[in-house]
């Protein structure tokens, strides 16, 4: 089965006051129908820029090359009019901050109806009926009343439900969730993740989840792509990666979390892994591994040439970009 989303060698160059920034450096990934793929990394790793470039939502001066195919169609070559039909239609996006993504001047019903009118051709009573149905799908109680509510009258969790309902209104094939629960409390987060799980099994949507939270990934993703400094450093089935991360950065991220399977104990006390240094801002192509300056396993080879993504089995979908990946046996049973 062909993937709903296929990203091939995506490169994004942004510009700040000091010049160009290589925000995304050759990302390839695919998301199949009914699959949840998590794109993971810390601040500045390029995960949100990747997400925004899927719908060409980056600033006008951004240089984007490579290929982004949704259902076989090349997004990077679409005209502005074609883009409008895809945005909120075949591809829907939910952002971190539901308050700034909703229009404060229009009621919830109004905003959902707009999507239904543009992408489904529904109007009047039909649109209203469908909007009510969507609000029920995302677990909003008393939907008739909520249709008339304005965003400021809703709690953060409720707003995020509305955002998901709006995303669903266009019956998307691909749903992109960019840190959808980061601004929410854990009990609300759990409710939202339940909704996402339920939607995936009911609609068979492909879901790309952008997050820094490995707990959320462990809860709901099928596959995980770890990004560092704009590039993919590891990709694996979620169980494989959490059990035996191979890239030193991925291993460091997991070891930094209390409660992960690979966290170490020292003299009876839990000791969290630290990754010294900072994520670099890259302004020119690198002739080395971007992680080498922070990596305890780095050798001269890492400082002289960039590692390519290579399969690292036993599973055939596990790949790592590292000359000296972590041995599988370091993981305590």
């Amino acid at each position: 089965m062909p993937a709903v989303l296929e990203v091939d060698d995506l490169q994004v160059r942004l510009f700040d006051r000091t010049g160009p920034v290589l925000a995304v450096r050759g990302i390839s990934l695919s998301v199949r129908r009914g699959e949840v793929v998590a794109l993971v990394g810390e601040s500045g790793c390029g995960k949100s820029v990747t997400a925004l470039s899927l719908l060409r939502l980056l600033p006008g001066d951004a240089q984007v090359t490579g290929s982004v195919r949704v259902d076989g169609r090349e997004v990077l070559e679409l005209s502005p009019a074609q883009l409008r039909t895809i945005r909120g239609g075949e591809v829907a996006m939910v952002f971190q901050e539901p308050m700034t993504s909703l229009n404060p001047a229009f009621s919830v019903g109004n905003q959902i109806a707009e999507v239904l009118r543009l992408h489904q051709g529904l109007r009047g009573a039909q649109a209203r009926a469908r909007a009510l149905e969507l609000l029920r799908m995302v677990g909003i109680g008393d939907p008739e009343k909520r249709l008339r509510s304005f965003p400021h009258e809703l709690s953060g969790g409720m707003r995020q439900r509305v955002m998901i309902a709006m995303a669903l209104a266009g019956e998307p094939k691909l749903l992109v969730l960019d840190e959808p629960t980061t601004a929410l409390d854990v009990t609300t987060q759990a409710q939202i993740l339940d909704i996402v799980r339920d939607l995936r099994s009911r609609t068979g949507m492909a879901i790309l989840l952008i997050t820094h939270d490995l707990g959320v990934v462990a809860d709901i993703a099928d596959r995980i792509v770890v990004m560092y400094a704009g590039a993919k450093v590891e990709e694996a089935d979620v169980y494989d990666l959490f059990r035996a991360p191979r890239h030193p950065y991925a291993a460091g991220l997991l070891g930094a979390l209390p409660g992960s399977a690979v966290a170490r104990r020292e003299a009876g006390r839990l000791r969290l892994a630290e990754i010294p240094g900072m994520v670099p801002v890259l302004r020119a192509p690198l002739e080395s591994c971007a992680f080498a300056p922070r990596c305890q396993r780095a050798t001269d080879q890492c400082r002289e040439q960039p590692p390519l993504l290579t399969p690292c089995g036993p599973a055939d979908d596990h790949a790592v970009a590292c000359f000296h990946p972590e041995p599988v046996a370091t993981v305590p049973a």
Partner: protein
Amino acid sequence: MTGALLEVERLTMEFRAHRGTGGGRVQAVRGVSFTIGKGEILGLVGETGSGKTTVGKCVVRLLNPSAGTVRFDGQDITRVPRGKLRQLRARFQMVFQDPYSSLDPRMTVARIVAEPVRAHTTDSATEVRAKAARAIERVGLPSGVLQRLPHELSGGQRQRVGLARALVLEPQLLIADEPVSALDVSVRAGILNLLADLQRSMGFSCLFITHDLSVAEFLCDRVAVMYLGEIVEVGTRDELFADPRHPYTQSLLAAAPLPDPVRQRGRAGARLAGEPASNVTPPPGCGLNPRCPLADDRCIAEAPAFTVVSALGHMTRCHRVEERQSAQ
């Protein structure tokens, strides 16, 4: 507890509500009591609006509580006059969540860290500089940062500067309000390891306020869980995480995803429905009753008192727990 450094009793804090909400009063903290022993880290855990930050601010008297007492080393700091409070403040210090807004952008790191020494001691300029340099070294920063301005530092480095400033006077109590919430995990790990190390070497007590249960479990000796302005459960870290008794604590623990798919997906997910009630008009009886699957008429009629459930002082406020306990 006789060895307590901090004793908080029936602490209550009310604010006037925003206009347009009917002019009621926000009951941010409703009769909270707890103690922190010498050298102990108490975690105060809760979600947005639970009142945990307000408790922290009342403890250092950045807010004057509406009622209740806060005794620090035997002295009631809610009633002491300003001058005396100033003296006491040298002995309890605070670290804040946002390392960007809590450091003066025009001051060098050396001045920021030296400021408490200047304010609270009569040390000579040389001694002040030496203390600041020592504090910076203690938090694992190179001495070169002393001459830097906050904007030249990373988020993790700034949080270390905040910590150096709080610890420069070697206080007996540190109040840390979400000190790692704004940081990426790899940086966060460094700060958490550092806090654990410093506590062991310096021996201070700590009120650690966080919404992140895994952080509380990593760092704290005891944990208190807040909901709607009240502490609903408190216990040692091991007892509270292994055997949470209050329905809110149970659902909070169940809702926080574990970074391990095998354990995470094997968990039974008892979800709490809905959202917390308004703290302008909290529900009568137990604050959780509108959301609690175990609630009955008694939970609406009467607020539960604490039931002690272990020899180590694990206790919780829930009628169901109390009923089970007395049936035994």
